[in-house]
């Protein structure tokens, strides 16, 4: 096994309660993040990727959401049980997050530099002036030309790519241990996307940060991550090293995803080509949630949900197809 993980998520359950039923947006999700690695998370829209990551940051609105259980161990403390004060010290400081929508993620009424400086000021207890200087420095590091001038700008005068760079500067300003990037490039043009991804890769090495990278895009995943976690309907269905996953996908859903991707190099495709529809999370099918769409579905799949089990030291999977064979061997 590798070194000690810096983040361990164990059996995380985040549910939403509404008039139309309960949505199990993250249901028994477990995974680890190791120092300086990039963990990619893929899955179709609505499978619970963002909710999982927002739970790590404790950013779920409660109500309508509710943390129904699990542990999130970071730096020796369980974030799920941490005090407000402890969480404030982690957020934006030790774990920070970049969101999907650069156009709306910055506060329209404050200057760019002030928004970055704000985070530095509270976490590093330095003066406003120093924090601002630091902010301008960060703007330079994320490749913004003429950082002194841009520092005084308001977000509305920046392009999407520039705003996402500002978000990255803000997220990295306190040199976090973990950076969560929730589809940071989905909203950007292809060329800008490539630049931002390159930037993230460079900075990640400089800062020795671990990254959790969420995307729809298998091409991006292949480029960015060391390990990949595949999610379906609120559950982790497969977790493997990136080469392993791409050379030999095992879970039928992962296989479907790979097939639906015409060419590894094209980016920007949405993963919706698997036959059938993403189930409504408040009325999931019984057993394995994927069975109505799965070409390998067996009787047991309709009755009992498979749990996530080790297949090898570096690979986990939740599928009866694999365990059935194992089970038969044992008999």
């Amino acid at each position, binding site marked *: 096994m590798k070194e000690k993980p810096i983040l361990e998520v164990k059996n995380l359950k985040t549910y939403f309660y509404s008039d139309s039923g309960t949505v199990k947006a993250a249901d028994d999700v477990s995974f680890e993040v190791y120092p300086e690695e990039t963990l990619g998370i893929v899955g179709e829209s609505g499978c619970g990727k963002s909710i999982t990551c927002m739970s790590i*940051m404790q*950013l779920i609105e409660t*109500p309508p959401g509710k943390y129904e259980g699990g542990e999130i161990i970071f730096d020796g403390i369980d974030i799920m049980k941490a005090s407000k004060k402890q969480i*404030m*010290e*982690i*957020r*934006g*400081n030790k774990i*920070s*997050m970049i*969101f999907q*929508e650069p156009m*709306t*993620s*910055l*506060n*329209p*009424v*404050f200057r760019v530099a002030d928004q970055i400086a*704000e*985070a530095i000021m*509270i*976490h590093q207890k330095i003066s406003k002036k120093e924090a601002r200087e630091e902010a301008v420095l960060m703007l330079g590091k994320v490749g913004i030309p003429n950082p002194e001038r841009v520092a005084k700008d*308001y977000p*509305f*005068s920046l392009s999407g790519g520039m705003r996402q760079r500002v*978000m990255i500067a*803000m997220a990295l300003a306190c040199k976090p241990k973990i950076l969560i990037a929730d589809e940071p490039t989905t909203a950007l043009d292809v060329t800008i996307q490539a630049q931002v991804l390159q930037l993230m890769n460079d900075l990640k090495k400089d800062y020795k940060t671990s990254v959790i990278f969420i995307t729809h895009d298998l091409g991006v995943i292949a480029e960015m991550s060391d390990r990949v976690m595949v999610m379906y309907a609120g559950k982790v269905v497969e977790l493997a090293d990136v080469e392993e996953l791409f050379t030999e996908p095992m879970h039928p859903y992962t296989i479907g995803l790979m097939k639906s991707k015409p060419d590894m190099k094209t980016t920007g495709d949405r993963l919706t080509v698997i036959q059938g529809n993403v189930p409504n999370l408040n009325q999931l099918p019984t057993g394995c949630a994927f069975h109505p769409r799965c070409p390998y579905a067996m009787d047991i799949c309709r009755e009992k949900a498979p749990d996530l089990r080790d297949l090898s030291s570096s690979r986990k999977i939740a599928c009866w197809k694999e365990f059935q064979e194992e089970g038969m061997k044992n008999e």
Partner: protein
Amino acid sequence: MRTYIIRRLAQMVPVFLGIMLILFLLLQLAPGGPTGMLMDPRMSAEQKQELAEKYGENKPFYEKFISWMADAAKGNFGNSITHKKPVVEVIKDFIGNTFLLAIVSLLVGLFIGVPIGIVSATKQYSAVDYGTTIFSLIGVSLPAFFFGLLLLKIFAVELPWFPIFGLTNPLLRKADWIVRAIDKAHHLVLPVTVLGLTQAASFMRYTRSSMLEVIRQDYVRTARAKGLRDKVVIYKHAFRNAMIPIITLLGFSIPGLISGALMTETIFSLPGLGKISVEAVGQRNYPLILGINAMLSIVTLLSALIADLLYATADPRIRYD
């Protein structure tokens, strides 16, 4: 910012002219015309003719309008028939009280309504939120005059804590200014309660819905993700944005505030524009009533301009456009 202000000013000119034109038309349509009240039934036809001539009654319409506008620009709206004084003088005597009542009530409304609206939005579905919703619903549904009369009945008639009418106690006319100030404040308690709570109710509604809208925005989540305390997130990041539509609504609510002040004055018999307007209408004192209309329309127009300026300062997207 410059272009924005210039554009707003340019839009205001035709609005101002339109207001004046409509008021002028009303004046012409008033029974007897603008000079009607000056005419004595005993005057001969020639005398009437002469008077009409003197006041330019027989000139063509546009000339009359232009000369009326020119007079109005100099602050001359003619004479108030019953007060035997220029309209402007009469308005000057009474407008202070109306503004006092309106501004104090507006401030009371803002200081009560906005903070409660914020708390109510951040604690959605809590007891505080339900309380606020019910209070503001009652506040916007209770007619001011009925509310005022109820207060009078309870706190002036049954419990003689407050005066029934007026703004000053005539017995204190010669007292120290501080005594008179306290006396005035005492007279204003009930009227300000009526108007201030009505205003507070609508600011609560505005603030609550504006905050609820803003709290859902991505940048509020960003602020929380930075590790800011809840208070900073709400009062700095969220409220700073929620304020923008509230300022716009503030501009729109000025005519309502003025109407409310006039109504409240009437109930509590305060000597203000409301009282003299009602009197003027009763006495068919058209120069005065139209002067008041013109004055208050201009006040409204100016406060809309101020609201626009505040709006532009609050929203950098406009400031730098």
